């Protein structure tokens, strides 16, 4: 039924999703914090930019990433100057694309979690001698923990489900950029419906389980 190529695709997909989620949690946290706390007029602009991947066709994101990261693009020039080569059609390129593609799925739950905490616990912490960073780790992180779980799960799941961006900037290189969604596409193209079914059903089951966990956890109330 399934073969080594399928397993390679699954492994690559999980790897991509894990790396992307890790990067997004690190990068998304300060962005979400800023969005939750700022009174700057830039809040609307940055918020809209973060939300763009929600509405843009993945091919548009992929196209611009391809252009900027390509040999002639500004990012491509930079990576070449740094001796890293160009990112398109590499795993690193996929990671960059996935980070953009899944950004709102991580930033928005975090932002909501930070906003829900409000000003008061931060003020209380300050009157109890905790500086900003101290407060972030000892008060904000524990209180926003459910938000972090939601952000990580959504970021991971959404990256697993990525297709258009991958196709645009990753192509279809076995064990390097061929993720599950692309593999399914290949199977269908080759009329290998049984294998397409196997992977597709796996994706459905995985996505359903993730969402089930997320929603039943929410309904149960977060203590």
């Amino acid at each position, binding site marked *: 039924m399934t073969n080594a190529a399928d397993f390679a695709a699954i492994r690559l997909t999980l790897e991509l999703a894990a790396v992307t989620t890790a990067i997004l949690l690190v990068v998304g946290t300060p962005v979400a914090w800023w969005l939750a706390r700022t009174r700057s007029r830039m809040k609307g602009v940055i918020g809209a930019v973060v939300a763009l991947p929600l509405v843009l066709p993945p091919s548009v994101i992929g196209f611009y990433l391809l252009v900027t990261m390509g040999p002639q693009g500004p990012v491509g020039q930079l990576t070449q100057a740094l001796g890293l080569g160009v990112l398109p059609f590499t795993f690193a390129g996929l990671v960059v694309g996935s980070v953009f593609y899944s950004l709102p799925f991580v930033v928005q739950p975090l932002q909501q979690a930070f906003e829900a905490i409000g000003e*008061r616990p931060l003020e*209380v912490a*300050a*009157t109890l*001698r*905790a*500086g900003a960073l*101290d407060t972030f780790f000892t008060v904000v992180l524990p*209180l926003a923990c459910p938000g972090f779980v939601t952000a990580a799960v959504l970021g991971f799941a959404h990256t697993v489900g990525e297709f258009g961006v991958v196709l645009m900037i990753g192509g279809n290189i076995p064990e390097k950029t061929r993720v599950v969604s692309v593999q399914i596409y290949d199977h269908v193209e080759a009329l290998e419906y049984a294998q397409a079914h196997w992977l597709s059903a796996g994706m459905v089951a995985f996505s359903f389980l993730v969402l089930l966990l997320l929603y039943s956890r929410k309904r149960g109330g977060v203590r």
Partner: protein
Amino acid sequence: MSPAAAVRVSGSGIEARFRLAWSGFALDAALQLPGRGVSALFGHSGSGKTTLLRCLAGLERATDGYLAVRGEVWQDDVRGVYVPTHRRPLGYVFQEASLFPHLSVRRNLEFGLKRVAAAERRVSLDHAIALLGIEPLLERMPERLSGGERQRVAIARALATSPRLLLMDEPLAALDAQRKAEILPYLERLHGELDIPVVYVSHAPEEVARLADHVVLLRDGRVLASGAIDEVMPRLDLPFAHDEEAFVVVDAQVAGRDERFALTRLEFAGLPLWITGLDAPLGAQVRARVLARDVSLALAERHDSSILNVLPARVVSLDDASPGRTLVRLDVAGRALLARITTRSAVQMGIAPGMDLFAQVKGVALLR
């Protein structure tokens, strides 16, 4: 910057000057508070008392501000000094208890404590716990506490940081009368047992009368009056005296007892003041209040009435309280009393400043 590195000035009290302008509200307050005892910031909502308290804490950044607490400068915008909140050795009790929901009572208490250098600790955790009577609550989570218990934990948490200034923003406002009565004795204990100046925001005259030594009256972001409670409350030019329930605070000493009639004699301005229902040892310091409407005036000392407390007094000033009623400020051997009488009586008796007469005090209510 450690507190030791802070800029120092002379002075043992609290000196503050803040200016702050928002749309629809401006704070422009300068005040000096004693470095010990309880100072109450009193005023209606919107008078700026909470904002002023937040400026003292550094939670609100006033422009053009100055703040020195017991000789330590926390803010001086002329010299570019601004100590952020978390570096100020203060305790702050918010209106709602604001305990950290993810920490047990014990870990809430330890949150501030463990961020204070050992050398700076003067209030032990055990002392704070005992003062507020919260030993049985230590292992509970905040969600399992009543409102009154939460507020007691919040006060203990603030105390456990050994603050050099304790700021309290209407800590009883969110509680019902029963919970208030539960906490007030603890607040009085703080006052008696710890040498920490307290700035207490309140809009309840009762609370102010019970707790405060010093009163700051605020209106529209400005300081209307500031002084010792027994000086500020009888002032006829301030709204306290014109309240329906206007009263003066009487700090007196227990001087004797009449067992037969279950009366206690207080010494007030060298004069006896009899009170019922007080069981305190000789020499104890008590605080009572005398309502303006419980004081009537007589031109001669009468012994044919049921009124027990008749004190010789001199009229200081008069003011129309409301149509038909007149407020009279009296001087009783250097202490102030207020009497509210009908204007007709005032006219018929010919009451005028400087006149000597007798104040008949119908009721003395013990505050603490």
